Structure formats: structure tokens, C-alpha cells
């Protein structure tokens, strides 16, 4: 039991109090195994401090620079392939429904043709409805508004159009005139 205590003290000599140090020294004089441990510990410490540091082979920094550029290239390649992969996945995800549709059409095209015909008929029906609505609107308008008012309105609109055209012409030519005057 005592040996364990002194063993701990041997390995923590720097942290001992003066009394503990004295106690340890006294024990080391008596105990052969503890003395051996203490001497070996000191010798190991000396051996560690006597040995020089290992040095890398010359050109370490250049090799690091090469490694850095290689790693950057690898990362760049990895990023590019990741982006390409994601894009491919997105493209497949987008085109897959279309592809399935196309395959279904190839298997039985009559369904698609029927759908197209129905869509065309629907559009034509909508157009004819719009035409009827416009016709009804104008015929109602003609019957309710007097002819003189229509003539006045037409003259007014024509006047506005002429004035508008003239203003646009003046505005359009103005900068070129200014340039030529300078």
C-alpha cells in the first residue's frame, strides 16, 4: 500500500510539498524497487530531452502546395459531379412523367387523339360564345344611342388620333433637330 503512494509521488515530484519530498527521499534510501523506478523515470526523461527532433525531407512546403492544389482540383471535380448529378436527377424527375405519357401514347394513341379533338371543340365553342356576346353588345348599343352622337364620337376619336400622331412625330424629331442645330 505504501509503495503505491510513493510510486505516485515519484511520478509527480514537481507537485510535492517539502515534507513529502523529504519523506520520499527517506523511503528511496530504504526501498530498492522504488529507487529503481525513480532512477528509471529520471533516465527516461533525460533520454527524451536528449533526442533531437525529426525533420521532414527538404521541400516540405512545396509538397504541401502541390497537395493543396490537388485537393482543390479534387474538391472542384467532386462539386462539379455533384451539381451534374443533381441536375441529371432533376431532369429525370421532370421528364419521367412525360416519358411515361409518351410510352402510354405509343401503346394506345387513340385516347390522345380523342382528347385533342375534344379540346379543339371546346375552344371553338368558347370562341363562338365570345363572338355572340360581342355582337349582342354592339347591336344593343346601336339601337339605344342616336346617330348624331356616333358621328361626333367618331370625329372626336379621329381628332385625338391625329393630334397624338402629330405629338409623337414632333417628340421623335426634336432631338435630331437639336443635334443638327448644334
Amino acid at each position, binding site marked *: 500500500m505504501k509503495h503505491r503512494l510513493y*510510486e*505516485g509521488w515519484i*511520478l*509527480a515530484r514537481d507537485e510535492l510539498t517539502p515534507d513529502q519530498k523529504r519523506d520520499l527521499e527517506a523511503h528511496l534510501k530504504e526501498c530498492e524497487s522504488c529507487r*529503481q*523506478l525513480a532512477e*528509471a*523515470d529520471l*533516465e*527516461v*526523461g533525460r*533520454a*527524451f*530531452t*536528449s*533526442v*533531437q*527532433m*525529426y*525533420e*521532414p*525531407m*527538404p521541400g*516540405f*512546403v512545396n*509538397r*504541401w*502546395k502541390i*497537395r*493543396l492544389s490537388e*485537393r482543390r482540383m479534387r474538391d472542384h471535380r467532386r462539386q462539379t459531379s455533384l451539381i451534374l448529378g443533381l441536375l441529371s436527377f432533376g431532369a429525370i424527375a421532370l421528364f419521367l412523367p412525360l416519358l411515361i405519357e409518351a410510352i402510354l401514347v405509343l401503346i394506345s394513341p387513340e385516347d390522345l387523339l380523342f382528347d385533342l379533338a375534344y379540346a379543339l371543340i371546346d375552344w371553338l365553342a368558347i370562341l363562338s360564345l365570345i363572338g355572340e356576346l360581342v355582337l349582342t353588345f354592339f347591336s344593343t348599343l346601336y339601337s339605344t344611342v342616336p346617330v348624331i352622337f356616333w358621328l361626333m364620337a367618331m370625329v372626336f376619336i379621329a381628332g385625338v388620333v391625329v393630334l397624338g400622331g402629330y405629338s409623337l412625330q414632333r417628340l421623335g424629331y426634336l432631338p435630331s433637330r437639336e443635334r443638327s442645330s448644334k
Partner: protein
Amino acid sequence: MQSTTTNYEIQWLERAQRGDEEAFARIIERYQVPVYNLCHRMLADPFEAEDAAQETFLKAYRSLSRYDMDKKFINWVLTIASNHCVDRLRRRRLKFVSLDEMVPGSLPAERTSGPESALVEQENREAIQEMLEGLGPRDRAAVVLKYWYEMSYEEIAESLSLTVSAVKSRLHRARRDMASSWVDRQIQPVMLKRRPDEAPTV
């Protein structure tokens, strides 16, 4: 080893944080030896040590924005290196690497004078490497940081994400194991080094 971060280094680090590769290259020049040494001591293989040191600087460069300028750069980079080496050792488990495999370029450039002292250093180096290889990854890291880099218990604890008491107990255990293996080594070498046909010296 100079452990404080100088004003020049802070300037280089600031430039490196803004993406200046050359500024970081100067930092590497400054710290390549301690980082490489730590990796070599931890991994006991010059080629793996080179790779680990390179990876350490790459990691440091990429996470430089997280580096706190108030702390010592050497401690920060050694933390990255020791954690990287601990991970490698865990992956590799017990892979024995002979000391004869070491390449000449990885040995220290400055040698002590005289063949006798060189022999002593070689023996010490081998003994240390053997002792380190007998320790677990974290204990090894703690020992290397303590002996070569003179880090405090608190700094080691921060580097290895351990408590201070855990670091102390790990270091005590490691030192006890190393001391006993040192004793064993002192008893054995004469018997081991003698050739079978050689007569014992009287």
C-alpha cells in the same frame, strides 16, 4: 523550439486567413519541424508522418478562420496533429514498423559530435520509439506533448479533449510503464547484442 507566436507570424496568419497561400507557406516553414516530429513520434513511420504532417497543415489552412489569435499557434496546430495521429493509430491498430525502414532524410539534420554520442543518441531514439509504441494513442500523444513540447497539463488536456486529472493519471501510468520498460531494457541489452558465437566478456 520557440513557442510564442511572433508579430510577424500574426501578420502572416491574418493574411492567410484572407486566403493568402504564400503567407501560410511561411507559417509552414516555421512550424514544419515540430509538427513533423510529433507525427513521427506518434506514428513511428517517416512516410506516414510526412502524410500526417501534410494533412495537419491542410486541415489548419482550411479551418484557419476558427483559429483564435490570442492563443499560441503552435499549440493549436499540434492539437490538430495529435488528434489526426490518434485517429490514424486507432484505424491502423497495432501495425509494427521497423526502425530500419526510416529514410535518411527524416533523421535530424544536426548530429551530435563523435561516433560514440551518435551511437548513444541512436540507442536512446530506438528506446524511446519502442516505449512510445507500447503506449495507447492518447497516452502517446500526452507523453510527446509533455516531453518534447513542454506543454502544461492544462494545455495537453485542451489539446486531447481530456480533463486535467485524466491527463495526469494517463501521464503517470505512461511514465511508470516507460520506466519499467527502461529498466528491462537496461538489463537485457548486453545479452541481446552479443552474437551467438561470441564468448561472454569476463
